């Protein structure tokens, strides 16, 4: 059997939750410079389904937490990001991207407008943290302080029961709508809690001081129904939710328009410009793009992974899969990938070249499983 998962690399970092992972029989794998759990003893499918039906904890401490402060912070950030702070309330989170001068994606991220007017809070992809910091240093002048937060654990609590669990510690979180964030106190420690996630379910990301995180996660795990879930379930959940993975579905050769992320760019900024990559974004929107990210459902049971070529009926290459695997919710293979835009106007039947087998597949819209975000009490 080919060696996909044995052999651990040296010189990897561990997160403050390493002991908890080991005590819960995690299968640790090298990921973004860390040992992280791909799964625990129940396996990916069980962890995936538990998240959809109840609530799971994910260790996402490898992700970069960055605080940027300085005068006129919103003007400075608007030169780098295609968002409009006049449309973002204090305490609101926005999904956005760092773009290069070609209008391609350096990284995608979450940015929170703090209640204080002097800073913003970012969460970026682990593997991109260094280049993001370089990008920030070269595009913000020295009056801005850029801090990589290295003493805080980040976990995601995801699933329909997540608010019921979390409100036993922080009563006020119950009313927080999706994509909002705030600071809370518990046991004399401060917590930065964001109602967002990467699963399509209601949920929270919780930033906790390293010195307290093991204790807090242990408390969560003592609650009936709260379980740990690993990177494997995180990936199948985000694929079902149709959410892009940096390095797979988006990269520095992909524009947000191709990736179907136009919704995340402020309309006002598209009209007025003034951010890095603007000319290209405007052009892409005006002229259209040659390829688009779509959902793909392979017919049958064989999963089609990233790198799989997509053919038309005449076996001519018309695209490529960028993420693919098995959907535990649909009990069928699912994939995401890029397809030539002109094909999309007509036919939705394609063939996938999986190791020489031509598998018929259907082009679909994303997501595969409906989002269940909490939009507020009505």
């Amino acid at each position, binding site marked *: *059997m*080919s060696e996909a998962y044995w052999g651990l690399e040296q010189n990897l970092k561990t997160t403050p939750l390493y002991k908890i992972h080991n005590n819960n029989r995690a299968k640790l794998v090298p990921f973004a410079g860390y040992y992280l759990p791909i799964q625990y003893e129940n396996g990916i499918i069980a962890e995936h389904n538990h998240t959809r039906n109840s609530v799971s904890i994910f260790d996402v401490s490898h992700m970069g937490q960055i605080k940027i402060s300085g005068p006129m912070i919103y003007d400075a950030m608007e030169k780098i990001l295609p968002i409009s702070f006049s449309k973002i309330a204090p305490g609101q989170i926005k999904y956005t991207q760092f773009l290069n001068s070609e209008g391609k994606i350096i990284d995608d991220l979450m940015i929170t407008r703090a209640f204080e007017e002097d800073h913003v809070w970012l969460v970026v992809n682990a593997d991109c943290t260094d280049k993001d910091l370089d990008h920030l240093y070269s595009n913000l002048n020295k009056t801005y302080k850029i801090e990589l937060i290295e003493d805080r654990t980040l976990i995601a609590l995801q699933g329909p029961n997540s608010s019921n669990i979390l409100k036993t510690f922080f009563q006020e979180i119950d009313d927080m709508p999706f994509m909002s964030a705030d600071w809370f106190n518990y046991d004399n420690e401060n917590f930065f809690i964001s109602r967002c996630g990467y699963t399509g379910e209601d949920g929270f990301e919780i930033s906790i001081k390293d010195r307290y995180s093991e204790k807090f996660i242990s408390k969560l795990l003592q609650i009936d129904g709260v379980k740990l879930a690993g990177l494997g379930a995180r990936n*199948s959940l985000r694929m079902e939710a149709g959410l892009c993975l940096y390095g797979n579905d988006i990269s520095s050769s992909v524009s947000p328009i191709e990736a179907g992320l136009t919704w995340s760019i402020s309309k006002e900024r598209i009209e007025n410009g003034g951010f890095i990559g603007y000319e290209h974004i405007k052009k892409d929107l005006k002229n259209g793009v040659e390829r688009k990210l779509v959902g793909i459902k392979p017919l049958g049971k064989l999963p089609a992974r990233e790198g799989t070529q997509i053919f038309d009926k005449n076996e001519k290459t018309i695209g490529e899969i960028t993420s693919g695997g098995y959907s*535990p919710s649909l009990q069928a293979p699912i994939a995401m990938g890029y397809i030539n835009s002109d094909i999309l106007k007509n036919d939705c039947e394609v063939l996938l070249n999986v190791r020489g087998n031509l598998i018929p597949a259907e082009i679909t819209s994303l997501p595969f499983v409906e989002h269940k975000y909490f939009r507020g009490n009505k």
Partner: protein
Amino acid sequence: MAEIYFTKDHEWIKVEDNIGVVGITVYASEQLGDIVFVELPEEGITAEIGKDIAVVESVKAASEIYSPVSGTVIKSNEDLNSTPEIVNEDPVGKGWFYEIKISNNDELSGLMSEEEYKKHIGD
């Protein structure tokens, strides 16, 4: 009586006379995690020792299976088409992959015994 041999790549083969049954080990199935698809060899094809003969798709990734011996595939485990999870449940029993008519029994001497394999995986 059937004898069982192992490869360093975590396949097993149970041999009786010159017929072998091939599958993956408990260790391999645990490493792979939830198995969702097995691409089996067609009956009648020729297998070569050490060459890829089947593919296991787990939720995590696709992994190739290498034939422990050379020969002709005489049967595939069709139960795996509808219920691939039996590889996780019973990898060295009901979760077998294919049956092979071994062309050269000398190749078996290059494989590991159960004891040697246990040492190999550090058990």
